[in-house]
C-alpha cells in the first residue's frame, strides 16, 4: 500500500505556507504536519491529495509559549514535547499525563498537537483537552487570522470549522488556577489504541466543596464536549464517591453514544459512566 503521487511544497515561512495552501486547496491540497494520521490514510488510498504543503521546515512553529494567562502551542509542536511539563502550572502536569495516552512513543515524536485538532478524530486526547479547557484555535489564511473557540471548532467526525485554505497556526489553552485538580481516564482495547471513551475533569476546591467543575467526554459522540449535567452534579459537593457516581451517571445519560460494528450505543454509554468516574477518582489523589 503506497500513497498515490502528489507534489510536495516546502514553505519556509507561515506566510508562504498560507499562500501556497490558498492556491492548491481547490485541487485537494492539504497540510502535512506530523503525517501520523495523513500518511496512513494515504497509504490506504482513502486520501489522494494532489498537493501537500509540508510545514515541518518552517522556523518557529515548534514554539510553546506562556504569557502568564495562556499557553500557546505552535503548529509543529509534537506530542512528545509534553513528555515533560512545559509550564509551571497544573496545566503542564495535565498535558504530560494526557500525552502518555496518545499512540506510541515513536508516533509521539512526529505527531503534532495542532494536527490532532485539525484531524479531529472523535477519540483524540488533544481534542478532548481542547474542548474541556475551552481552547482557542487560531486559523491562518491569506485572508488573515481567525480565532475559533473550541466549542465552535468541532463539527463532526473528522470535521472542523477550518476552511480548506486555512492553516491551524496555533492553539491557545488557558492556564489553570494553581489549586486546580485534574483527572483523566480512557478505555481502549490495547495500549496505544484510540480510546473508545475518555474523560478529562478539572475543578477547584472551595471550603472543601467542588467549584468550577469541567467534565469533558471524548470518543463517545462524533466530537468531544463538556457535559453540563455532570458539571452541575459536582459543583457545591464535597469530592468523593457520592458526587463522583452522580456525575458519572449524569454524563452517561447526557451523551448520545455512537454505535459501530463492534460496539453498541449502550456499551459506549457504560464506558462513559466508567471513564468519568475513574477520571474523578484520579483527580482525588
Amino acid at each position, binding site marked *: *500500500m*503506497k*500513497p*498515490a*503521487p*502528489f*507534489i*510536495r511544497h516546502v514553505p519556509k515561512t507561515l506566510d508562504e505556507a498560507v499562500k501556497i495552501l490558498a492556491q492548491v486547496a481547490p485541487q485537494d491540497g492539504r497540510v502535512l504536519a506530523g*503525517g*501520523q494520521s495523513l*500518511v*496512513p490514510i*494515504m*497509504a*490506504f488510498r482513502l486520501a489522494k491529495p494532489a498537493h*501537500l504543503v*509540508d510545514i*515541518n521546515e518552517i522556523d518557529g512553529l515548534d514554539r510553546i509559549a506562556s504569557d502568564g494567562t495562556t499557553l500557546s502551542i505552535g503548529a509543529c509542536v509534537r506530542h*512528545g514535547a509534553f513528555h515533560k511539563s512545559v509550564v509551571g502550572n497544573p496545566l503542564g502536569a495535565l498535558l504530560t499525563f494526557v500525552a*502518555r495516552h496518545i499512540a*506510541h*512513543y*515513536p*508516533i509521539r*515524536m*512526529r505527531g503534532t498537537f495542532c494536527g490532532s485538532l485539525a484531524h479531529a478524530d472523535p477519540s483524540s486526547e488533544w481534542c478532548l483537552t481542547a474542548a474541556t479547557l475551552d481552547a482557542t484555535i487560531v486559523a491562518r489564511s491569506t485572508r488573515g487570522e481567525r480565532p475559533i473557540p473550541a466549542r465552535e471548532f468541532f463539527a463532526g467526525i473528522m470535521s472542523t470549522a477550518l476552511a480548506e485554505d486555512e492553516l491551524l497556526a496555533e492553539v491557545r489553552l488557558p492556564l489553570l488556577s494553581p489549586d486546580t485538580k485534574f483527572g483523566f481516564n480512557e478505555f481502549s482495547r490495547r*495500549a*496505544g489504541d484510540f480510546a473508545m471513551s475518555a474523560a478529562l475533569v478539572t475543578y477547584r476546591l472551595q471550603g472543601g466543596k467542588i467549584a468550577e467543575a469541567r467534565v469533558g467526554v471524548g470518543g463517545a459522540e462524533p466530537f468531544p464536549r463538556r457535559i453540563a449535567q455532570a458539571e452541575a452534579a459536582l459543583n457545591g459537593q464535597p469530592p468523593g464517591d457520592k458526587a463522583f457516581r452522580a456525575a458519572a451517571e449524569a454524563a452517561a445519560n447526557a451523551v448520545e453514544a455512537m454505535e459501530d460494528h463492534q460496539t453498541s450505543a449502550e456499551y459506549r454509554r457504560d464506558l462513559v459512566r466508567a471513564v468519568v468516574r475513574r477520571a474523578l477518582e484520579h483527580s482525588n489523589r
Partner: protein
Amino acid sequence: MTEKSSITLTINGRDHAIKVEARRTLADAIREDCGQTGTHIGCEHGVCGACTVIVDGEPVRSCLMFAAQAAGKQIRTVEGLAKGDTLHPMQQAFMDHHGLQCGFCTPGFLMLAVGVLEREPDISDDDLIDVLSSNLCRCTGYQNIIKAVRAAAKEMRK
C-alpha cells in the same frame, strides 16, 4: 509517475545520493534505493513498528515519513548498531535473553529501545514496558524482549 527529485540520505554516517518521487516513504527509500534491507516493513501504516529507525536522535516510524523529509538529517538503522564484530549492548542482550525468534520485528525493537534509552537513560522499568508496547512481535510473547531491554539499559547506563 510524477517527477523524481534528487536527495541525499545520510544513513549510519554514509551519504546515499538517490532520486525519489515525493510519495516515496523513508522506509522504501532506505531499503530499495539505498539497499539497507535491515529495516523491515510490516504494515506500512504505523501500527507494527518493524520499520522504526532513528532520525536526528528520535525513534520514528519510517513508513510514516517521506524520504524527502529526511534529507539532510542523520538516519540510523540496525546496520549501524554493531561496531565491527562487536555487537551493540542491545543486540548482545537480545541474544543473551532470547529476545528474538524469527527476527522479523527485531530491527524495529532494537532501534526503538536504543533510540529511547539514548534520550532517556534513566527511564523506569514501568515506562520501558509502555515504550515496548509500541511495536508488535508475533513470536516471542514479549517477555524476553522486556528482559533483554532492561538488561541492556543497565549496560548502557554504565
